[in-house]
């Protein structure tokens, strides 16, 4: 029966081409608009590391206390999202988690070995060796540096494939060196494409930007006095001047992540953090009770407000638009079905039950939805192209259609249009078989 209804639907749609085109256009435009914004929204709202997002935790320690001066207001939930060097090192030394890494963003001038090439700027992430297995970075060649390298503040580096191509023209560059600010680092690993979106591990700086090109041991970067190229927050007192002064200050500029595979691990770590802060209180460094927090990746993304209000509003606007389009299609379907009341009356007289008429009209609505969905997909592609030309490079990176988006578009179109078709369809099923006879 489905095939029969489908055939009837296509025939009926071809019969009244203007109404059909209007309906499909309405659904298509609505789907196009809503899918365009939804695609960007989904990319922003993406879980960047779904297999581990419940096991990786960002660590917060309140080292400023309730009387913070100016930068962060006294909201108990909104406290420092980064750690001071003192706390970062304290937690690294404690090794209370399964794996953990302190890290920060920095940069340097890379001087290529070929003297005819000009030096260029590279983004650097200073981290511990656990960074790589924790965040499941794909190595093309080599691997992370060793824990000993961390301990020895070794001159080693992991670089991206892109940088390897640029500096060495690709190939196996393990063992070669790169020159960063006149200092040589030995390459131990080359990363393949690794582009978690958003860049959850450091949201203070370019949540949707490109990641680092070079990874160095945290201990080595500190030795090299490589300053943070990211967000630095100091609560009034910057402390003593100079690099040593910065390391001893309460300024926060270091991200800290811990891998805690089970709920029990997380609970233990919470206790550990609390004890750590309490100990700092006893030592006289904190003048307030322990105030610490761990948040897993999803909680962290929400807490950091990764999806900006603008895009939430845009999604809201475009889905209201879809609603208008569906109301529109619903009105047209109603007109179309009522215009066919005669035929429906005859079918009823010839033995079609209400259910049969209902099914026939609902499938027609579904066909409109399907066609509208396909049109919507084309319009979405067009819309995303438009966004790429309109928006900054950072956001443009989020305008790529995934197979999931295509499925969502089609399913949304068919389901929404069918729902909009329910009322007109119900009206069609109410058409009395006697009607046509009476009208004679």
């Amino acid at each position, binding site marked *: 029966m489905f095939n029969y209804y489908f055939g009837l639907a296509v025939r009926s749609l071809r019969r009244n081409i203007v*109404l059909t085109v*209007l309906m499909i*256009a*309405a659904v298509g*435009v*609505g789907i196009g608009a809503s899918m365009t914004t939804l695609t960007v929204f989904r990319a922003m709202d993406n879980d960047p590391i779904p297999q581990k997002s419940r096991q990786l935790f960002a660590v917060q320690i309140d080292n400023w206390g309730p009387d913070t*001066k*100016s*930068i962060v207001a006294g909201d108990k939930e909104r406290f420092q999202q980064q750690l001071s060097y003192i706390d970062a090192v304290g937690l690294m030394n404690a090794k209370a988690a399964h794996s953990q890494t302190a890290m920060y963003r920095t*940069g*340097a*001038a890379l*001087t290529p070995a070929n003297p005819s090439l*000009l*030096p*260029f*700027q590279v983004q650097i992430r200073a981290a511990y060796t656990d960074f790589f297995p924790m965040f499941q970075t794909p190595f093309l060649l080599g691997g992370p540096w060793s824990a000993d390298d961390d301990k020895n503040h070794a001159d080693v580096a992991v670089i991206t494939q892109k940088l390897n191509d640029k500096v060495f023209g690709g190939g196996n560059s393990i063992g070669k060196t790169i020159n960063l*600010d006149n*200092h040589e680092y030995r390459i131990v690993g080359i990363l393949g494409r690794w582009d978690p979106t958003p860049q959850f591990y450091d949201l203070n700086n370019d949540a949707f930007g490109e990641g680092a090109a070079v990874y160095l041991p945290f201990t080595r970067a500190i030795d090299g*006095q*490589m*300053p943070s190229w990211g967000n*630095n927050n*100091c609560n*009034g*007192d*910057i402390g003593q*001047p*100079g*690099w040593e*002064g*910065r390391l001893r200050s309460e300024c926060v500029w270091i991200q800290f992540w811990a891998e805690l595979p089970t709920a029990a691990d997380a609970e233990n770590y919470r206790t550990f953090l609390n004890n750590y802060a309490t100990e700092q209180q006893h030592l006289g460094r904190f003048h307030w009770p322990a105030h610490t927090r761990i948040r897993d990746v999803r909680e962290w993304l929400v807490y950091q407000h990764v999806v900006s*209000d*603008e895009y939430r*509003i*845009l999604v809201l*606007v*475009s889905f*209201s*638009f879809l*609603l*208008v*389009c569906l*109301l*529109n299609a*619903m*009105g*047209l379907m*109603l*007109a*179309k079905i*009522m*215009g066919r009341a005669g035929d429906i009356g005859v079918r009823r007289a010839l033995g079609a039950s209400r259910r049969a008429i209902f099914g026939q009209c609902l499938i027609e609505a579904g066909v409109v939805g399907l066609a509208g969905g396909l049109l919507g997909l084309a319009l979405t592609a067009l819309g995303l192209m*438009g*966004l790429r030309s*309109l*928006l*900054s490079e950072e*956001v443009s990176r989020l305008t790529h259609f995934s197979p999931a988006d295509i499925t969502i578009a089609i399913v949304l179109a068919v389901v929404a249009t069918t729902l909009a078709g329910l009322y007109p369809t119900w*009206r069609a099923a109410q058409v009395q078989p006697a009607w046509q006879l009476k009208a004679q």
Partner: protein
Amino acid sequence: MQFRPIISAMRRNKVGAVLIAVQMAITLAILCNALFLIEQRVAWSQRPTGTDEANVVVIQNQWVGSPPDLAARLQGDLAALRSLPGVQDATSSNTYPLSGGGSTTGLSLKPDQKNATALASIYFGDEHAIAAFGLKLIAGRNFNSDEVVNKMGYTDLNPPAGIIVTRTLAEKLFPNGSAVGQSVYEESIKGQIPIVGVVDRMQVPWVGAGGWGSKFSESSLFMPFHFLSSYPTYYLVRSQPGQAAAVMQAAQKKLFDISRARVIGKALTLAAARTEAYKDDKGLVVILAVVCASLLAVTSFGIVGLTSYWVAQRRRQIGIRRALGATRNAIIQYFQTENLLIAGAGAVLGIAMAVSLNLWMVNIFAMQRLNTGYALIGAIVVLVLGQIAVLWPALRAASVPPALATRAA
């Protein structure tokens, strides 16, 4: 025009009429909120920075490593830039307006004040900074060259000899009198800092509406420092009017002639920086405008479609009316009045929806209260749209021949 027969006819097409009214209401609600947002964003992205944007060239400079003679290199670069043809003046700073990155401090009137009196963004600059940015000094004086000292990275905490503040910051700190000659305290630097001058405007480096800096976007200060750092720093070169492109080329070439052990990260005018900085705002405006236009199009096509259907349904009835003496105009008016009634109901509902949508967004998002003028403009747009959309089907209705009444249905 009589309403009663129209209303009783509409009752027979209840659902269709309701569908159109609800569509128009949602259209109105989205339209006026979107227009409001567009207007705000356009106004936001057009705020002046206070600088001579068209002629100020920004060149990002990063030294390879940390050469020991940084101070001399900086002086050499600046002297060379100032001597280029077509250059009015040049300075060096840690950041520039529209860059999106910079440094903030809290200023207080007393040494142990718990909460800062004002937040301000910090620009470093020498005695050439005012001329190089193209700012207007409105009170006090510029820095003297002997006040300008070297600052070795952000962890160097030497106090400045004095600061120059913006008018807005001066008024925030000293609402009752001149700021020049007064002193303030800064978060990290020990001791008083005298205010030596006031410039009319100098915007903070951050541009995001509702983002960091948006609450004190006109509060900036200059400290008389040459910034020596392994961070990238910026040369600001102000060209003679219209020569920015040539100066940008010449300046980069000159810098590489002096030394190749550097990275020039980017070079652009402040005007170009503005385009880049507000790209997402402009994009949002365009997207909203496109959505609004599509919304209006879809709604009007919906009206055309449904009204055409009603006309087709009532052809015989219209023929009878014509036979009974109704003029073409009377038929057109009939459908226009019908649409006006539906759109009117939609507009009332729409204004209510617009206001509640706005109130909700004020709560959820950091959005401002809707100006009621926008709701009224939206209502008028929707009413006019309805009248235009209904015109075509109404004309078709008017062309139904009276003779139709004499024929069988």
